[in-house]
């Protein structure tokens, strides 16, 4: 732990790190067990390969890969358990994969258990029977199956679902191919755990506890592989934790895909308690009677039947595992975070923080080889990391209150003031009144100048806006062209709310030596409020001396001498010469 505060010693020894071990797995697919009865514990990993192919069961001894065997499908869970009372006491390995449990003994395939098929909808069966006997054609069948899918309580089988997704021309072939086979509906295993059968001994015979996609939990007898108990949940389980003995009393804690946690007991096939979390659980670890859950909202929460505590983590949780050290009476929770750290918590107190070179995706703590306190982690990049807890390491609860945050001792970044600023301050103190008066004088002058200009504009109707109540108008002018002929466009807009304006005309005032206007007087049509009316005319520059002038535009109301508004257009210099 590189970030340990002073006074604390390193707690973990780095035993092994292989960054290219090529392992893709979850905490649920890693276990430690003495597979050959020689007192040396091996690491068993269900490797998901690429996630699409190359799934393997790998066994490690020390730093070496001892054996590997191919798995047919993705491993969802892996447990080592004692399935019989034979001597020497060697545990078997159960790998859950798809709808099956593969049991390995002495690292050799031993037994395959397949989950019983689910109930098939009788109406669906009937439809397939009919098509088999040729009573209905595939199109009719499609309609009937659609009907079943929408209404029925029992979902359709894979075969019908696949059929429904087919194009019309593929249907016949598909029906021919499949109609002889009986309809099956199968589910897959989502998580697996072990439950001691009748004794609490370390090497007592254990039952397998299986959670399925069909929202059920099964308890399997380890010798005969028959279902001892079947329980149902409101949603598919994702993680499972089991404690107790099947024949006496047990408690199964299940995290489900709907974000809730349920507790199943011996006497009921329905959950006894439920705990609603505010976000999805990522990890579930039981410490004694408490359940510690890590959630996607970067929180770690402790429960019994009700919530006990909650603490916030610095990064999203990737995986969690229990750290149980019975020889020292220590129980904690290891949490792998997305920021390449592994935290060790006892209740809500952080005891240790391990920095890792990569994001840890699975954690397993226990006896490996002959060392009791071994921490085994795999990383996102496929690495395998083994650390050993120092025998001298002591975990003491740090003070829960972290003390003042570091930022408190950071100096405030207050901008410095220059000498000039200070000088100006002094000048203002001495001459404040004069400065204010000068300001006031200038302000008054500016206001006066503005007012004068405004009055002048108003008096001579020089504004391009007319604010008269009867004819509120707005105008802007655009000159286009290089010369000698320019196009002059005047955009007129009536800004009244609803009244149209009528009887308007436009006339121009210009130097007749310089310009010739195609239409020096224009009548304007009725102006509907809001619309912009472009009024166009052509102006010819008659001078070849490269000079320009102003053209004044007047908007007039018929029968009134005073213009409503005036615009001055600064004409550009004509760049073209007149052709004579």
């Amino acid at each position, binding site marked *: 732990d590189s970030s340990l505060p002073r006074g604390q010693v390193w707690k973990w020894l780095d035993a092994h790190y292989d960054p290219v071990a090529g392992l893709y797995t979850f905490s649920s697919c890693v276990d430690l067990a003495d597979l050959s009865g020689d007192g040396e514990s091996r690491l068993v990993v269900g490797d998901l390969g690429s996630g699409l192919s190359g799934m393997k069961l790998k066994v490690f001894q020390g730093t070496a890969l001892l054996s590997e065997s191919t798995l047919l499908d993705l491993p969802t869970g892996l447990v080592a358990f004692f399935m019989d009372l034979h001597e020497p006491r060697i545990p078997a390995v159960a790998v859950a994969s798809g709808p099956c449990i593969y049991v390995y003994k002495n690292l050799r395939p031993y037994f395959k258990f397949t989950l019983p098929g689910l109930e098939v909808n009788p109406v669906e069966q009937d439809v397939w029977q009919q098509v088999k006997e040729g009573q209905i054609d595939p199109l009719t069948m499609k309609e009937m199956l659609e009907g079943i899918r929408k209404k029925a309580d029992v979902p359709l089988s894979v075969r019908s679902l696949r059929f429904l997704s087919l194009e019309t021309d593929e249907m016949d072939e598909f029906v021919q191919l499949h109609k002889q086979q009986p309809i099956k509906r199968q589910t897959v295993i989502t998580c697996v755990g072990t439950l001691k059968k009748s004794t609490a001994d370390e090497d007592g015979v254990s039952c397998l506890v299986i959670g399925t996609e069909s929202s059920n939990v099964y308890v399997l007898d380890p010798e005969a592989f028959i279902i001892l108990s079947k329980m149902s949940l409101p949603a598919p389980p994702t993680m499972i934790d089991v404690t107790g003995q099947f024949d006496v009393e047990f408690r199964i804690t299940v995290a489900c895909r709907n974000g809730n946690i349920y507790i199943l007991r011996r006497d009921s096939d329905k959950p006894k308690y439920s705990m609603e979390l505010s976000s999805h659980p990522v990890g579930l670890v039981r410490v004694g009677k408490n359940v510690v859950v890590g959630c996607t909202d970067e929180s770690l929460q402790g429960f019994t039947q009700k919530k006990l505590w909650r603490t916030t983590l610095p990064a999203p949780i990737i995986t969690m595992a229990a750290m149980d050290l019975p020889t020292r009476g220590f129980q904690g929770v290891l949490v792998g975070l*997305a920021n390449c750290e592994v935290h060790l918590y006892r209740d809500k107190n952080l005891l240790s923080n391990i920095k890792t070179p990569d994001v840890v995706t699975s954690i397993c703590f226990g006896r490996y080889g002959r060392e009791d306190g071994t921490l085994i982690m795999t990383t996102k990049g496929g690495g395998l990391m083994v650390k050993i807890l120092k025998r001298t390491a002591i975990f003491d609860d740090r003070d829960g209150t972290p003390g003042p945050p570091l930022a408190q001792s950071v100096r405030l970044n207050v901008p410095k003031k220059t000498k000039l600023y200070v000088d100006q301050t002094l000048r203002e103190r001495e001459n404040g009144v004069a400065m204010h008066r000068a300001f006031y004088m200038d302000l008054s002058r500016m206001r006066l100048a503005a007012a004068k200009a405004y009055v002048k504009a108003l008096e001579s109707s020089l504004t391009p806006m007319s604010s008269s109540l009867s004819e509120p108008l707005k105008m802007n002018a655009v000159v286009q062209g290089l010369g000698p002929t320019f196009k002059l466009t005047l955009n007129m807009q009536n800004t009244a709310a609803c009244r149209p304006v009528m009887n308007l005309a436009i006339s121009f005032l210009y130097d007749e030596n310089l310009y010739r206007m195609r239409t020096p007087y224009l009548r304007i049509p009725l102006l509907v409020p809001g619309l912009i009316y472009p009024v166009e005319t052509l102006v010819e520059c008659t001078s070849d001396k490269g000079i320009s002038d102003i053209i004044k535009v007047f908007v007039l109301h018929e029968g009134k001498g005073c213009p409503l508004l005036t615009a001055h257009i600064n004409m550009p210099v004509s760049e073209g010469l007149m052709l004579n």
Partner: protein
Amino acid sequence: IRAPKAPELPIVERRNWLIHQHYIRKDYETCKVFIKEQLQETNGMCEYAIYVQALILRLEGKIQQSLELFQSCAILNPSSTDNLKQVARSLFLLGKHKAAVEFYHEAARLSEKDWEINHNLGVCCFFIKNFKHAEEHLNTALQINKHHKTFMMLGKVHLLTGDTDKAIDVYKRAVENFPENTELLTTLGLLYLQLGKYQKAFEHLGNALTYDPNNYKAILAAGSMMQTHGDFDVAMNKYRVAACAVPESPPLWNNIGMCFFGKKKYVAAISCLKRAHYLSPFDWKVLYNLGLVHLTMQQYASAFHFLSAAINLNSRMGELYMLLAVALTNLEDGENATRAYEQAVMLDESNPLVNLNFSIFLYNHGDKKAALDQYQEMERKVNLLQDSSSSAEFDPELMDMAQKMRAALQVADNVVWTKPGKDSKSKPNSAAATKTPGAPLGSNQALGQAMSSAVSYNKNIQLPTGTNFTFCRQECEWVKTHSRENVSVKLVQNAHSDLAWKSLP
């Protein structure tokens, strides 16, 4: 002829667990790869894969696309409440609250006693301003599951309907259930602060800071309370934490500036306030404080500009006009100062300082009758304040000043009291120097007399009811009185610290 053996069809749900595992680990890229694979394998019939795909799209901000996928999930499995809930959630995020409400009702029909549905229905109703229904739904949600989000929302609904008492009750219950939730603690603390219950406010804000020493809102609120009590160093410590977390917060720099001001480090105060002003140029409180600090620095011309800018932004505050009048008096613009005072007196309702300052101004300009009127108006306000709260404290300097003024007005013809009149014509920069003559005058007054004409030290908290959409904006201000000179100069300092905070949308 025997038909060829049919191939085993893969189970549609076979990778659901894997998709879920990657989804909850926020490894969306890998998740998408498996989803694609699964949808190819099942010809798009895997409901869960589509569902997670839609969730990821929504997280990526492609809400419309996610909505369409959720709708196709709902077609694949019409009896699932989850699908309906997610359709509604996407509609909600698109701002189509009414449509979302319909889908939630639909979902509620399929699953009773669902906290999520009731909570979200409440939120939707809140956004379409149907507060009555919002309250009902949120209460139902609380009966099913006590969730801090629901408490938060219910409190907000009560605040928006103006029912502060109910809101406080809700937050109290929430804090009982979630004693370590800093958001709830801060909200409750700020509510108490608004209501003037400083003890309780400080308790809750302190608790919030215990659990999360970096909580910006709590730091600002608690810091401003410490400032009120003159604990500038402690407040400054807290602000340093906030300055690391939110270095561009205008209220924070405003408060830091006023901390420096309290510690008489005026240049630093101006630096900080100018930064606050730069970050939030239309905040009148920053301008107010800038005006105040410049007045203290005797930079009256600058003070005038800051104060007039503040008045342009908030023209309904008497104290602003009063400060402007003080600046104008010092700039020897008696005419405008009188106008500013008149405006101040007209707008102000409870602050006796305004009248006292006006009274002094009038007295100094020889209008004793009007000065007496203002003085009496001041006494009326003081009595009013004392009646309304027994704990009203009064600044000793202000009391002292009022006492002198009283004496001056009562014995107006007395030759001894003409001296202040002369002082008023003294130059502003000599103000500090002429402080000494005031002391013997003050010491002549009997203590009992001083108490009877007590003037307020007003420590009020202003409560604008800015109940806009994002919740209320709270600012606390406190008033402090410093008289710079014996009777003639009336510089009243009024520091504003504010804290603007927003709740989650």
